[in-house]
């Protein structure tokens, strides 16, 4: 803020202002320290898992099957995490974007909009374990599905929908009003305007939001304990493409323990001599995925912005 070429207003006159300058220096130092401290913690966490997983992570750990007697691998669990992520996103992204379109383009201030907004906030603040319990009654018991990937994905959808809707709404609202006015002035209907002008311009923001929420879904465990199950799969036969067969890894109607749930269950059951290594290795994989999702969101968002606005 200070410009060195101008004569600085003299604060050195009174003793009190000398004190104020000193306090300012100390406060600035403390706030810098807060920033450095948080970075240091993050670096320490990443370093810790890099070291802890050094002897564990290998191709056979990432893709191999779990074993009761040796280190084994987490292949089926990683597969389940990816499978659940895709299933959840297939349901929650379209629904979230549609809800976001309503909130950004159609909603007028009033009781209904206020209720939707309240519901959005309420769902985001419900603890994920409670969302999991709701899934336990609704999908496991009432619907009689038992523990299934679909039940888990629906629980994750509940947890992801308000965030997806919010992010889409923000991305859509960020589109300048002139773009809409221009389209409407050419005689386009409101929906044509949304479809051909507003949504395409909001896509970079929406895609960034999707990738960031994907990271959250990938690591979620509490909502899945009682919906997708805790059983450790022995291994999958990927040649079995019959999605009605609960043994097929492609079927949504089968229990699907994910990597995040596996960290918790191996640890709480305490089975085998390799709990520590398995959990360290799995945590490192989850952490790496978080880093990849974050980096991906940034790069993809930037790339799309460039492509869509340079045209």
């Amino acid at each position, binding site marked *: 803020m200070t410009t060195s070429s101008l004569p600085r207003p003299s604060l050195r006159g009174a003793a009190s202002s000398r004190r104020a300058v000193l306090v300012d220096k100390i406060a*600035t130092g403390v706030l810098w320290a807060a920033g450095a401290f*948080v970075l240091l913690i993050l670096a320490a966490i990443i370093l810790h898992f890099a070291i802890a997983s050094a002897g564990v992570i290998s191709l056979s750990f990432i893709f191999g099957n779990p074993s009761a007697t040796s280190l084994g691998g987490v292949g089926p669990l990683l597969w389940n995490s990816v499978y659940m992520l895709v299933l959840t996103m297939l349901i929650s992204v379209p629904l979230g974007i549609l809800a976001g379109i309503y909130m950004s383009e159609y909603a007028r201030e009033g009781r209904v909009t206020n209720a939707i907004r309240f519901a959005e906030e309420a769902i985001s603040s419900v603890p994920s374990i409670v969302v999991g319990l709701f899934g336990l009654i609704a999908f496991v018991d009432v619907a009689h599905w038992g523990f299934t990937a679909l039940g888990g994905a629906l629980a994750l959808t509940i947890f992801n929908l308000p965030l997806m809707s919010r992010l889409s709404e923000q991305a859509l609202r960020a589109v300048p009003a002139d773009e809409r006015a221009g389209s409407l002035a050419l005689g386009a209907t409101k929906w044509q305007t949304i479809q051909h002008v507003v949504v395409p*311009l909001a896509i970079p923001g929406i895609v960034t939001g999707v990738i960031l929420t994907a990271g959250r879904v990938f690591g979620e465990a509490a909502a899945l304990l009682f919906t997708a199950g805790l059983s450790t799969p022995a291994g999958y036969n990927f040649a079995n493409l019959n999605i009605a067969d609960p043994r097929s890894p492609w079927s949504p109607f089968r229990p699907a323990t994910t990597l995040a749930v596996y960290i918790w269950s191996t640890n709480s059951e305490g089975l085998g001599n390799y709990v520590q290594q398995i959990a360290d290795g799995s945590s490192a994989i989850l952490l790496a995925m978080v880093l990849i999702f974050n980096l991906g969101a940034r790069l993809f968002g930037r790339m799309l912005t460039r492509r869509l606005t340079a045209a």
Partner: protein
Amino acid sequence: MTSLTTSGRITGLRPTTTFRERLDVPRRVVFVAALSMIGIVVVMLAFIAWQGIQLFVAGHVTPASLLSTTWQPDNTAGAVTFGMLPFVAGTVGVTALAVLISAPLSVGLALFLSEIAPAWARTVLQPALEIFVGIPSVVYGWLGLTVLVPWLRENLSGAGFTLGFSWFAGSLVLSLMILPTITTVTYDAFRAVPQDQRTASLALGTTRWQTIRHILVPAGLAGTLTAIVLGMTRAAGEALAVQMVIGNRPVVPTSIAQPMTTLTSQITLDMGNTVFGEPWNDALWTMALILLLISIGFVILIRVLNGRRKFQ
């Protein structure tokens, strides 16, 4: 814009609207998508409330008997008592301490990011905060279990941390998890303070810290409180990370070095070991209902803090 010229469906002025336009299917579809969120809340509340009151309806337990510190859910030792005070006290205690640890650091970080940090520091810290949000809670829990708990046991057993599993361990793990939440919301509140106010204050000859203390902190107060309530919401509802480090002992703790338990921890631990329909299981659903009501209470509190700000 290419999207305007390539669409090719814009046909000029039309004096009348067609039936299809009056029906406006797209509007109805997006409206239903948005309404589905209200549907989810209503159905979720109904199901959890229905299960949550079974303890009183089917189990013939009086609501007043929950106000006890004795948690004796199995009939191995005479009277069965579903005292829930240890869990509620645990959730309140672990949340309060987590906020006490996290809020000063988070607000300091938000001030640093908004007022002091040069551009390079911001481009490093903002992705760092996003990564903090993204780290799964089981990973935080595992880190607490393998690093924090043994460290407390080995170095602070003289201070009472004989097990390591403790109120303090739970709160410390939570404080890290809510740090990005509080920081980003507070940061937004500080950024929303008009630049003119800073300039005017500095022009009066104040130092930057005086401007922060007397202009920014009061102006951002509502935002900061909202941020803290959001952090509390996340802390009170967090299950696995807390369960892994807190010791899971159903007692009302007297020291932060003691093991204790929370509503979420107990549900996580016992839900798989109890049979649907038995009173013990019903008691867990009652805890879930309490959690749900707490979180809705927080949402309402945030609304009150934000005044009548309905849009945006």
